[in-house]
Each structure stands twice: as structure tokens, then as C-alpha cells.
């Protein structure tokens, strides 16, 4: 029973411990692929940790995909401690796939170092309240339902999450750009490669929440900056 020497194992008690930010961390540091291997569904040593992991790895995959990473670089697999052969086949298959893709940045939507910048923003979003709250409620909403007893399908939950991922990543990228210097919506839109009306919507939402304030006017364009009172907080969080 032999497999590729290119794999390093990090031991956790349960895949339930896998924080979505850990996956971002691995790619920030230059990993070409991450595979999360846990118990088979229904046979979790920690009762339900693998179901939580499934949602969290799913979220991280979507966020990093949106950031420009090839989502095939992340795999979530099931294998019991008695299935050595299966482990080898999971690792071998994944290793093969990664080798075909080549190093990070080569088979991805964005090249390095732009990809790394975007992954850093995805990591910030993955560590924050909004995404983590929805992901934390995922199994409740799909199994027992929300407060009003409405149940959602996995598909509906993921569709909602996709939208939130998009909003969160754009929002944190805007903040990251504004931290460098006050910026106009049209400049931000160019840098983010998003339509200006979308960026305006995010900026106005941030302004309403007091996170962003008006810094001045340049020509016809208002310049926005990270509001003084939240600057420290945002810097700390990022």
C-alpha cells in the first residue's frame, strides 16, 4: 500500500473542527490542494461532526471559487480508519488531479499573486459573522426548519449562501481597497471588475452601517473612506 509523497497530514479530532478559514490559510500559504477526510456519513465518531464539516468545506469551496481558485483543488472525502485501501485511492486520485492542474495559480481563474490577494479577502469573509451564521444554521434549516417551521432544501440554502458569499467578498474587498486610500465608486468598480451600480450599492450599505464615510469630492465623484470609528476595528479584524 503506497501513495504519493506529496501529501502532508494534519491531524484533527474530527472534521467538525475544520474551520473554513483553515482552508483559506492553506492556499494563502501556497498549498496546491487540500483534502478533508472524515468518517462516512451516518458513522461519524463524533455523532454529527462530519455533516457540519460538509457544510463548512462546501462554504469555503464556494468562497474560494468566487475568489478565483479552481474549486477542484478542494476535496471532501469519507473514509473509515479501517479502510486503508480507500484512503490510498482517495489520496492517489486527488494527487493525480492536482498534478494535472499544476501549481496554484496555473489552472485557476486568477494567476498568482492576484489570486492570493483575493483568497486573503475570502478568508476575512469566512471568519466573519454573516457567512458563519448562515452556515451554522444550515443543518437546522434543512432538517427541522427555521422559527416558522419552514424547511429549506440544500439547493435553496446553497443558492442563498452563494449570494451572501458574493456580497461579503465584494464588501470586504471594497473595505480593503478603501483602507489603502479613499476611493471613488468607479475606480473601485474597475479594480473589482464589478459593474459600478453594484459597487455603489455595497458602498451605500456600508455607509448606512457607519463603516464607510464620505472623504471628499474629486471632480464629479464622491470619494469614500473607511469611517474613523470603524477603521481600527476593521484593521484589527483584517
Amino acid at each position: 500500500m503506497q501513495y504519493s509523497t506529496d501529501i502532508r497530514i494534519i491531524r484533527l479530532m474530527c472534521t467538525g473542527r475544520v474551520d473554513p478559514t483553515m482552508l483559506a490559510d492553506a492556499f494563502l500559504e501556497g498549498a496546491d490542494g487540500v483534502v478533508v477526510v472524515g468518517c462516512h456519513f451516518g458513522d461519524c465518531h463524533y455523532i454529527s461532526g462530519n455533516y457540519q464539516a460538509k457544510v463548512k468545506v462546501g462554504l469555503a469551496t464556494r468562497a474560494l471559487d468566487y475568489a478565483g481558485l479552481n474549486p477542484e483543488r478542494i476535496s471532501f472525502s469519507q473514509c473509515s480508519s479501517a479502510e486503508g485501501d480507500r484512503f490510498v485511492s482517495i489520496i492517489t486520485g486527488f494527487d493525480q488531479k492536482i498534478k494535472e492542474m499544476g501549481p496554484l495559480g496555473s489552472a485557476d481563474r486568477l494567476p498568482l499573486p492576484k489570486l492570493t490577494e483575493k483568497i486573503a479577502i475570502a478568508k476575512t469573509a469566512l471568519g466573519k459573522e454573516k457567512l458563519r451564521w448562515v452556515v451554522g444554521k444550515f443543518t437546522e434549516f434543512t432538517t427541522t426548519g427555521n422559527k416558522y417551521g419552514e424547511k429549506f432544501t440544500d439547493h435553496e440554502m446553497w443558492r442563498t449562501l452563494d449570494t451572501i458569499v458574493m456580497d461579503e467578498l465584494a464588501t470586504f474587498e471594497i473595505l480593503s481597497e478603501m483602507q489603502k486610500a479613499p476611493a471613488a465608486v468607479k475606480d473601485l468598480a474597475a479594480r473589482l471588475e464589478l459593474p459600478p451600480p453594484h459597487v455603489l450599492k455595497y458602498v451605500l450599505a456600508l455607509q448606512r452601517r457607519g463603516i464607510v464615510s464620505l472623504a471628499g469630492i474629486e471632480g464629479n465623484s464622491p470619494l469614500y473612506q473607511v469611517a474613523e470609528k470603524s477603521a481600527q476595528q476593521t484593521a484589527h479584524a483584517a
Partner: protein
Amino acid sequence: MADKIRIGVFVCDCGSNIAGYLDVKELAEYAKTLPNVVYVKENLYTCSESGINEIKDAIGKENLNRVVVASCTPRTHEPLFRGTCGEGGLNPYLFEMVNIRDQCSWVHMQERERGTDKAKDLIRMGVAKAALLEPQEPIQSQMNPNALVIGGGISGMTAALALANRGYETTLVEKSPQLGGLLLRLDKLAPSDMDAATFANQQAELVKKHPKIHLLTSAEVDAVAGYIGHFNVFARTADGEENFDVGVIVVATGAQVLQPTGMYGYDGKTVINQLELEERFKAGTFSAQNVVMIQCVGARNEERKYCSRICCMVAIKNAIAIKELSPSTGVRILYRDIQAYGMENEALFQKAKELGVLFIKYDPNHPPRVESDKVMVQHHLLGRELALPQDLVVLSTPLIAGEDNETISKLLRVTLDENKFFLEGHVKLKPLDFATDGIYLCGNAHYPATAREAISQALGAASRASIPLSKGVMTAEPIVSTLVDEDACRGCGLCVALCPYGALEIQHTEKGRKVKVIPVACKGCGVCAATCYQHALSINSYTDQQVTEQIKAFLRG
């Protein structure tokens, strides 16, 4: 950690298991270059007495405050090396294990150089994590010495008696007004021919008279809070509510017989189930000249995939009873497969055949048809349909999960299987325990069982339950969740809802709502830490920072 980090690395040859495939000398030399490493030793066998002593000596002489062993798997050797650190005067949790055998030498046997390079990475990652380890103390908690048994059938009564006879105050909660469960409705128990109800009533008398058993009939468990050693239970009785504390809980809630409504013309008169047949035996009202029994009614189908396991024996037992009662009565059993495992059951199967009971196999794709005075069945060998005369059809229906199982599973936070039976912690390692500590299961609550099997399981579950009770104090691994940043916690309860073990609760403190970890109930899975958006929770020995440092150590080289 004001002290300077001093890490000792011990690299094991494991004879030729590691040294035969990796360059262990090079690994040892490499380890010396790593940050915070002050001492490196290569051992022929680190787990041998001399290896162990070298670790202990080095802790003292070299003033080590972290130990890393690069050898085999923590599954077998981590407890040993932790113990060694403890004996050497170092907190056992300042130890990190690197697996260069299972993860390197064994799986890269043909690639000495690349395997050695990988082992270097793994050691570097282990050292990086070790530097961040914190001392931990085992968690100790007092046990409440009382027990709760839910269910007053044969399993519950047996478990309660076993616990009470060991001297533990036991509360037995039974939903119906009477003890005895399913046995009260059965006739004889195979293979002993013992009268089921008489036996159940005898046990019930023992339960009622036992000074250590507190019996609550017509009662249901309403709410359970807490964890092993400290369960707080509310039971609703006819007279009101009882509240008491127990240390352990045994679930013996039994199962129910599937009523075959709408199947094979079931009417409870000329088409009945096995339970109703036994009730006729008991009442002395059985009379029939031609009996046809149909097996697997409502079982092993799309809706209920499982085999109820005991119905074949029940049919054989009742067929023999019919033959002994009325030898001229014809008995035909239409079956799919016969389950008659074990010496006695096989003997009964043979006896039934000797008494003239006919066994006819049917194909589930062409099930038998019940007509007014006959049953039509396609014979698989003759290849044609047989008409079997009948004046009584008996349907063998499976035991199905108790109607309260979902409620109880939520109350106790224990799992059900796909058929809503209770699910044990592990099929082989913990067959009578739930995954949640301090809660045990036995009898039909788990899966259809004979009285004999249910009794064995009940004795086993009581025995398992008395292990923590007899210790008086619980000691648990300290690799658990910790609230590391109380100020950050907003008391939102997201983690509480996701904890599979009920090990988190919200407390009202001076600082407002805050989460509280119940370390003795926590298993350290880490779901809470991976969920918390305030990053207020962490797992001892698996903190975010420790994992991140391992990632960095690998990829930054």
C-alpha cells in the same frame, strides 16, 4: 508561557520499520536545526524501556519543556509517551507525536529520499505545533451515584434489578400502568417453554419489593438536562411532576409490533398476527384445522428494509404449539428465508419439521394471495401455484421502533438509526453504550431481540452503567472546548445548537449572556470552535493558531 521553549525531539528507528526506509540519521540532524529544539536523540525503539528512560532523563537534564516523538501512530503509542512525560515531570499534554512510520516509511517504501524529505516536513510541523502547546489537567467531576432506567419491560426491569442489586438507587420509569411490556401479551417463551407473563410478573414483583428501586408507573420522562454524573430529570406522573438527579441513564423503551392493517386481508379474526395468535393460546380460544403463516409481512421491503430477526422463531414456536395442542391441524409457513440461528433455535426448526409443519418458500415478487378459504402461493421449485386450504391465516409482522423514540432521542441527545431504533456508540467497541457518555441501551429499543437476548443486553448495559457509578469520580481527557475569549462571546447560542453532546450551555453572567463549556460532557470534536464567528471558543491542543502554524511550517519550509 514566560519560560523559553525547549523542545526535545526523539526520532525512532522502530528497528527497521522506519530506519529501513528513511534516513533517520539525517532526520535527527535536521531536527537539530529547527526553532526551539535544544535536544535530539535517535532511538532504536523509542517505546522500549531504554527509549522511555532516555526521554525521562532528557526532560530533567536538558530542562525540556516540550517533547516531540517522531515514530509510529498516536492511536497506539500516544498514551505511553504522554505517561512518560508525566513520569519525567512534564505535563503530559506538552507532548506532540509525529507519525513518520504509517505516514512515511510504510507508504513510501521505494522512495527513500522523498520519504525522508516528507518526514522532515512532518517533524518541522510537529515542532511548530509543540511550541504552542499548553499544559492541560485531566477533568474530574463527581458522579451522582443514582441511575435512571426508562422502560419497564423485561429489559428495563432486568437492568434496574441489576443496578439496584449492586447498591445503586435506581428510578424505573414506565409509561403504562403495569410493568412487563410485550411479555405480558405473549404466551410461552422459546426455547424454555416458560410462561411469558408469569415470568414478567415475577420480575415485576422483585422490582416492586426492591428497597433500592423507586418505581414510577404511568409516568414519562419529560426533560433531561446535564451530562454523565449529573443528569437532572423531570418525570411526569399521574400525581404531578417528579424531579431528581441521576448519574447514568439506561434506555430500555422496547419496540412495538407492526399492525398489518390492509395487508393480506388482515381483520383480526380469520387473518391475525402472531401476537393475536398467542393471545388466543393464552385465553384457550385457539381452534383451526388449517393454519397458514406468512413471514416478512411489512418487513424487508422498500418501506422497512431491515429483518426483524425474531419473527421466524416466533412462527416456529407457535407452529409447534399448534401441533402440540391439536396434532391434526395442518400448519404451513410461507417464508422468504428462515432465521433460526443458534443450537436451540435450529433444534426447534427441526422439531417443527418433524411434527409435520410445512415450510414453503415464496418469492417477494410474487407474494401469496389470501382468499376466503385458501392461500395461493407460487411454489419456486414446482413452478406452479399451490392452493393451500386455510381457516386461519397468521401474519408474521416485524417489531418496529417505539412511537416515543424520536421524543426520547431529542430529550437525551442520542441518535436513532434509519429505522428509528436507537443507535449504539459503536457496533463492536460500544454495543451497549450511546456515543454520549453515561447513557446506555438494551433490548428492543436497539433492535428486535428475543427475551433471552434482551436480558443479556440489559445485564450488560447495567454493568456498563455501573463502571462510572462505582468509580465515584469521572476523569476525562482535557482535549475539550474552552471559552478562550469570554468578552468576545455574545451568548448567541449558535454553538449550543450544534454541539452533538449537549456540552455547551448559555449562562447569564455579570457580563451578560455567555456560553459555558461543560468539560466533562465535551468530546473535543471542535464543531463549536469552527462555527463561532466571534472566535471565542477553541479546542485544547487543536487551537486555530496551532493548526495554522502547522500549515505554515509545511508550506513555508
